[in-house]
């Protein structure tokens, strides 16, 4: 059929045309960017802010490492002193200490020679230090500690503390979209305002596709600059490029593509440069600032966390009540913990002393305020769950979730650390309390058997791939909506 073959030929010819045209448009766009001083400024800006942010983040990480190291050094010195004193006592020497400070007293060692329960920074910790510098990164649980969970009361809101330091996550979440907006807000409007678009549109081409190619070139340029700046920043700070760093690069590329897609869509409406700039800045403000803080606000309103002051007051109140009924408490405690009861001669039946009463009352206080603590933790957990669900509303929150997961500074990592510390505190007490109740001495051979802290992160579930999918879907959906909705028409442009 002649008509059919002619039609096929035209189709083929058009395909040939469009593929060669694409390449030339891309090359010319690159050439124009290269010749434009703006690109040089952009390159300098991107490298400067990334290098500075990485240095800044690394400074925080180093401080964290230093404080842990110094706590460990102090612990080791205390252990050496402990062993010296225990040996000295064994040899029958007197120590220049008060009786309750003698290291053979389990209460003394349990309180004065605590282990360091440290939350070490990860390989990528420098990329997102927003929360980690506010949170405790090591504790030294002792036998006397009231309620160790009170040490973790900084954890108030997962989103409120999202952005604080000028680190890489701040640059990526806050500044990167602004760079993309500045680079692309007028990609079509400038052509329209200069009159070039009339000349372009008088040619047999799909202007929407032409604009997409121009945006794509800019996206590739900015993505390469960012990836380059990130790699150099990480390398200079001696970060190991294990899978975490590659995951980071992928997430950044997807996040950048979202802002490019958004700029592309806004341009397609064919409005003026000023209109595009204001629209994109409004969207930035909404997605990066307003939405995360609203999510945080909603979480706090729906699941209000009891006040920390109330917790402390409750603790004191219970402690005061316990002090008044020490003997009864001790009796109750021993009934509940028969393993602690020591067989005594009848004349020694009242020999349980101050420490036994003290620990029994402490246990009681902890039991009594446990529902309050559980409520506190439950509310926090509910806040977490809500924020976790609502994070899909904003690519910025998703990226923050990804970055803090990769940096091991996420709330989940912090909660895992907190749980590990709780467990360790229990282990520590369980080691010493039987000695206290049995009125046994602490000896040098027990030093090696002291419980050691181990961070248990086995319960952590990665959300990386889900987050990546959603970050991918955002630009994809925007582009598909464009193709379906066809906001652009050359007939609206002139």
């Amino acid at each position, binding site marked *: 059929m002649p008509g059919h073959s002619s039609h096929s030929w035209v189709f083929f010819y*058009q395909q040939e*045309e*469009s593929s*060669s*045209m694409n390449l*030339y*448009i891309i090359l*010319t766009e690159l*050439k*124009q960017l290269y*010749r*434009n001083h703006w690109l040089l400024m952009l390159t300098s800006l991107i490298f400067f802010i990334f290098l500075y942010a990485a240095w800044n983040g690394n400074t925080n990480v180093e401080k964290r490492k230093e404080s842990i190291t110094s706590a460990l050094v102090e612990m080791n010195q205390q252990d050496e002193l402990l062993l010296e004193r225990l040996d000295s006592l064994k040899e029958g020497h007197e120590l220049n200490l008060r009786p309750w400070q003698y290291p053979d007293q389990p209460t003394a060692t349990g309180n004065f020679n605590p282990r360091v329960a440290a939350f070490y920074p990860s390989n990528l910790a420098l990329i997102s230090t927003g929360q980690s510098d506010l949170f405790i990164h090591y504790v030294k649980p002792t036998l006397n500690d009231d309620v160790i969970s009170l040490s973790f009361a900084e954890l108030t809101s997962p989103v409120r503390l999202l952005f604080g330091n000028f680190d890489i996550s701040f640059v990526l979440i806050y500044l990167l979209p602004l760079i993309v907006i500045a680079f692309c807000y007028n990609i079509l409007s400038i052509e329209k305002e*200069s*009159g*070039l678009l*009339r*000349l*372009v*549109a*008088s*040619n*047999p*081409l799909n202007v929407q596709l*032409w604009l997409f190619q121009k945006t794509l070139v800019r996206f590739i340029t900015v993505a390469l600059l960012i990836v380059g700046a990130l790699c150099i920043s990480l390398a200079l700070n001696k970060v190991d490029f294990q899978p975490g760093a590659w995951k980071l690069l992928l997430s950044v590329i997807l996040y950048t593509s979202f802002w490019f897609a958004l700029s592309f869509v806004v341009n397609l409406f064919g409005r003026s440069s000023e209109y595009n700039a204001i629209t994109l800045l409004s969207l930035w403000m909404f997605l990066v600032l307003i939405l995360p803080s609203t999510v945080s606000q909603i979480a706090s309103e729906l699941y209000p966390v009891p006040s920390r002051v109330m917790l402390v007051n409750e603790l004191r109140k219970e402690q005061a009540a316990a002090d008044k009924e020490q003997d009864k408490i001790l009796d109750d405690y021993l009934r509940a913990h028969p393993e602690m009861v020591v067989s005594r001669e009848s004349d020694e039946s009242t020999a349980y002393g101050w420490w036994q009463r003290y620990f029994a009352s402490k246990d009681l206080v902890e039991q009594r305020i446990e529902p309050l603590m559980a409520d506190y933790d439950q509310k926090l957990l509910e806040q977490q769950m809500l924020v976790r669900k609502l994070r899909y509303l904003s690519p910025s929150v998703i990226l923050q979730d990804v970055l803090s997961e990769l940096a091991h500074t996420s709330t989940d990592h912090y909660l895992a650390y907190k749980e590990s510390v709780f467990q360790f505190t229990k282990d520590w007490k369980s080691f010493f309390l039987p000695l206290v109740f049995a009125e046994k001495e602490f000896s040098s051979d027990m030093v090696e058997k002291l419980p050691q802290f181990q961070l248990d992160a086995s319960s952590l579930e990665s959300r990386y791939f889900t987050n990546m999918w959603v970050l991918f879907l955002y630009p994809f959906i925007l582009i598909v909506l464009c193709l379906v909705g066809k906001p652009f028409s*050359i*007939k609206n*442009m*002139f």
Partner: protein
Amino acid sequence: MLKATNLTKYYGKHLALDALNLEVQAGEIFCLLGANGAGKSTTINLFLDFIKPSDGAAFIGGINVEKEPIKTKKLITYIPENLVLYGNLTGVENLQYFLSLAGKKLKSKSLEMFLEEAGLQSGAFYQRVKSYSKGMRQKVGIALALAKESKVLLLDEPTSGLDPKASNEFSELLIKLSELGVTTLMATHDLFRAKETGDRIGIMKSGQLIENMSTGEVGHTDLEKLYLDRMK
């Protein structure tokens, strides 16, 4: 080659083009004269498919512009009043870029030849266009028409702001293209240039074509008198 049948355009309630019927033969230069707002640019925009007609249709080479814009755009080159090119690209690069938009690719030698044919000095071929005068840019537009082998030139006041020499050179190029069979529709305010260059002249007023004559029918003075009379 160019045909408008009952071509009408409303902007809201304002009638910009009132049932225009026009036919321009292949190789003919048709000059549209008229005051600002007479409908000249609207006519050009309708042939370019930049705006949607309220009624009627425009045809290029017998193809309906609105229905098959990609096909009709393959036949045309458009040169606006102020031809803007990419300032950071050279004349040759601009020419290649706009040719590539039309689906063509030529070697540098050929591009230089077309620029030379359009009257651009060879020293300017590889200069960045931001240093070009308006006349030089218009010549790149003509070179584009030559390189694209366009059948139709749509010109919207192309000589406005050009000095007399550049304007004259431009007219000569149009005549040369006309001899090659290129059809030209030119909107202009320049009566003298229209008389010198055009084969036919149309006078527009309030969206209507009120005069359609051959340039041979009137002298320069008569044309000016006729135009002023019609504008009253």
